[in-house]
C-alpha cells in the first residue's frame, strides 16, 4: 500500500543573473537576465507504508526541496503529491496532522523556555488526548532520555540534546509518516546511535514510514532497505543498497597470509598480487563466496590469516553520484 506517491514533480526557480558593481545594480532594474533553474526536475516515486527510505544526493541536488514540497512548505511548479491519498498543496492542515518533520539545521523548540513548554504547546496544537500524550512522552523518554533535561531552557542544551528534543517533539502526535532531514548532522557517536536506534524502533513498533535525508552513509547502511539517489534534480537511482553495491562494486578482495610463500591460483578468483607470504585475490560475489574460496585454497596450503575487503560505501556512493553506474 503506497502511503506516499510523487508523480512528475517539478520545482523551478527564477534566477536573475546579477551583474557586478553599481552600474550592474542599476542595469538590473531595467534589464534582467533571467534563467529558470529546476531544483527538482520531473521526479516520480512511491513509498510503501512502513518503509524506511534513504533519500540521498550531493549538496544542492534537490533533497530538501523535495522534502519541503512533500510537507507543504513549498508549492511545486508542476506535478502531484499524494500523502495517504491527500495532496499537501490542497489540504495542508490535514496532511500535516499525520506528519512529523525534523530539519536537522532548524529547530521548532522555543528557544527561551524549557523543553517541556514546547511539548505542552504541541499537545494543544495537535489536540493530543491526555492519555495518549502521557504514553507517548513515556515511550519517547525511554528512547531519548530527555527527562534529564526537559526542564532546561532550550538555548542551554547541547546540539545532541536539542536534536533529541526535536525528534521527540515531532513524534508527540504519533504521526504515521516522518521526514527527517539530516537528523544526525553534527552529532557525536552516542547521539547518532540513539537517533538510529529511535528510527529503527519507531519503525518496528509503530510501522512509521520514514524518509531520511542524510549525508551520513552510516545512517544509510544501518537503517535503509531502500535508497533513492537524486542529483541535479533528477532521480538517478531507486532500489536497494545491496543491488547498487552489486552493480558498482561487484568484486570483493580476499587477503590471505600463508605460513610459507605460495602462489596458488583459483579458477573463480583473480590473483591480484603476491608478496612473499601474502596473496590478494579478487572475486565476484555472485560467482563464489569468500568462505568457499578460503576453504578451497586451504586444501592446497595452510592459511595463517585472512582478511576480507569490501568496497567502501563512500566510493560506491560517489560513483553513483557521478552517474557512471552499469545497469
Amino acid at each position: 500500500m503506497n502511503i506516499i506517491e510523487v508523480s512528475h514533480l517539478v520545482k523551478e526557480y527564477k534566477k536573475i543573473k546579477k551583474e557586478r558593481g553599481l552600474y550592474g545594480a542599476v542595469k538590473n532594474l531595467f534589464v534582467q537576465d533571467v534563467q529558470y533553474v529546476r531544483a527538482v526536475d520531473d521526479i516520480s516515486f512511491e513509498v510503501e507504508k512502513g518503509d524506511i527510505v534513504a533519500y540521498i544526493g550531493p549538496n544542492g541536488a534537490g533533497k530538501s526541496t523535495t522534502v519541503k514540497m512533500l510537507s507543504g512548505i513549498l508549492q511545486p511548479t508542476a506535478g502531484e503529491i499524494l500523502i495517504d491519498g491527500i495532496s499537501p498543496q490542497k489540504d495542508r492542515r490535514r496532511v500535516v496532522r499525520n506528519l512529523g518533520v525534523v530539519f536537522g539545521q532548524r529547530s521548532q523548540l522555543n528557544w527561551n523556555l524549557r523543553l517541556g513548554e514546547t511539548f505542552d504547546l504541541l499537545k494543544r496544537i495537535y489536540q493530543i488526548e491526555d492519555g495518549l500524550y502521557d504514553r507517548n512522552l513515556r515511550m519517547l523518554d525511554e528512547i531519548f532520555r530527555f527527562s534529564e533535561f526537559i526542564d532546561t531552557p532550550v538555548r542551554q542544551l547541547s546540539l545532541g540534546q536539542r536534536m533529541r528534543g526535536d525528534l521527540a517533539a515531532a513524534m508527540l502526535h504519533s504521526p504515521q509518516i516522518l521526514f527527517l532531514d539530516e537528523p544526525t548532522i553534527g552529532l557525536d557517536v552516542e547521539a547518532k546511535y540513539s537517533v538510529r536506534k529511535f528510527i529503527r524502533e519507531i519503525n518496528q513498533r509503530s510501522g512509521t514510514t520514514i524518509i531520511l535525508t542524510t549525508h551520513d552513509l552510516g545512517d544509510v547502511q544501518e537503517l535503509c532497505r531502500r535508497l533513492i539517489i537524486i542529483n541535479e534534480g533528477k532521480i538517478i537511482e531507486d532500489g536497494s543498497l545491496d543491488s547498487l553495491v552489486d552493480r558498482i562494486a561487484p568484486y570483493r578482495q580476499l587477503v590471505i597470509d600463508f605460513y610459507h610463500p605460495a602462489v596458488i591460483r583459483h579458477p573463480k578468483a583473480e590473483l591480484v598480487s603476491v608478496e612473499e607470504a601474502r596473496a590478494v585475490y579478487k572475486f565476484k560475489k555472485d560467482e563464489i563466496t569468500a568462505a568457499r574460496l578460503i576453504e578451497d585454497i586451504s586444501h592446497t596450503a595452510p592459511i595463517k590469516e585472512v582478511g576480507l575487503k569490501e568496497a567502501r560505501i563512500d566510493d560506491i556512493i560517489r560513483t553513483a553520484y557521478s552517474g557512471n553506474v552499469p545497469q
Partner: protein
Amino acid sequence: MKKIKYYASVAAALTRQSIQSRLEYPFMLIGHVLANCVQWVVGFATIKFVVDSFGSLGGWGYESLAFLYGMSVLSHGLAVVFFIQTWYMPYCVVEGEYDMFLLRPMGVLFQFLFEDFNLIGITDMIPGLMVFFYGCAKVHLEVNAANIALILFTLAGGTLIRGAVWIFCGSLSFWTKSTANFTDMVGALFERVSMYPLTIYPKWTQALFTFLLPLAWITFYPVKDILEMEGSVIPVPMAVIGLGVGAVMFALSCGLFRIGMRRYESAGS
C-alpha cells in the same frame, strides 16, 4: 464553536509562553516602559502647545482634541499588542521562519501573530489611558451603555484597520523579498491621521483617507459621532461603520497573506 475553543486554547498557551519568555529578560521590560511614558507625554505636550498657540486645530477645541488623542493612543496600543509581529514579516520570508508554522495543522498567520505576544504593548496604553480619561472628563462624556459600546467598537475597528494595513505591508515581502518594509512610514501616517482632526487637511486628502485608504475611520469619524459634532448623514453610528471597514480590510489583508504564502520559497538547505 469547537474550533474557536481550539484556537483560543492555543492562543492562550502561546501568549503565556511569550510572557514567560519576556520575563526572562526583565531589564528590557523596564527600559521599554520608561521610554514609552516619555514618548506619549511629549506627544501630548505638543498638542497642548499647538492649541495654546493657535486656539484650535481644524475647528476642534482643546477638550475634543484631548479626547481624540486619547482614543488614538489607545487604538495604537492595541494594534501594537496584537499586530507588532507584522514588522518581522519580511525577515521571516527571507530567513525561512514560516516553515515551522506550515508544518503545524493551524493557520500560519494566526500562529505567527500570537508567536510572540507583545506584553509591552500594554504599557503603551497606560499614558494613553491617562490622556483618554482626561479627555473624557474635559468633554464631560456621559458614561452610558451607548457611549461605552461606541468606544469599544471604535477601538476594535481602529485596531483592525491598523492591523490590516500592517499585514498588507508585511505581505508585500512575499513579492519583494526584501527585509525593509513600509511599516514605520505607515505608522507615521496612522499618527497624522488619527491623532489630529481630519479637517486640518485639504479636501482631497480628506477624501483619500475616507474612501481610498480608510484611515480616517480609525478615530476621526467615530469620535466625531461620540462627541455629537454636526449631524451625521447616515443613520448608522460611525463607530459601527468603522468596525465594518476594519473587518473588511482585515479580511482582504489576510487574503493577500494567503496568496503571498503560495509564493513562499523558504530558505536554507
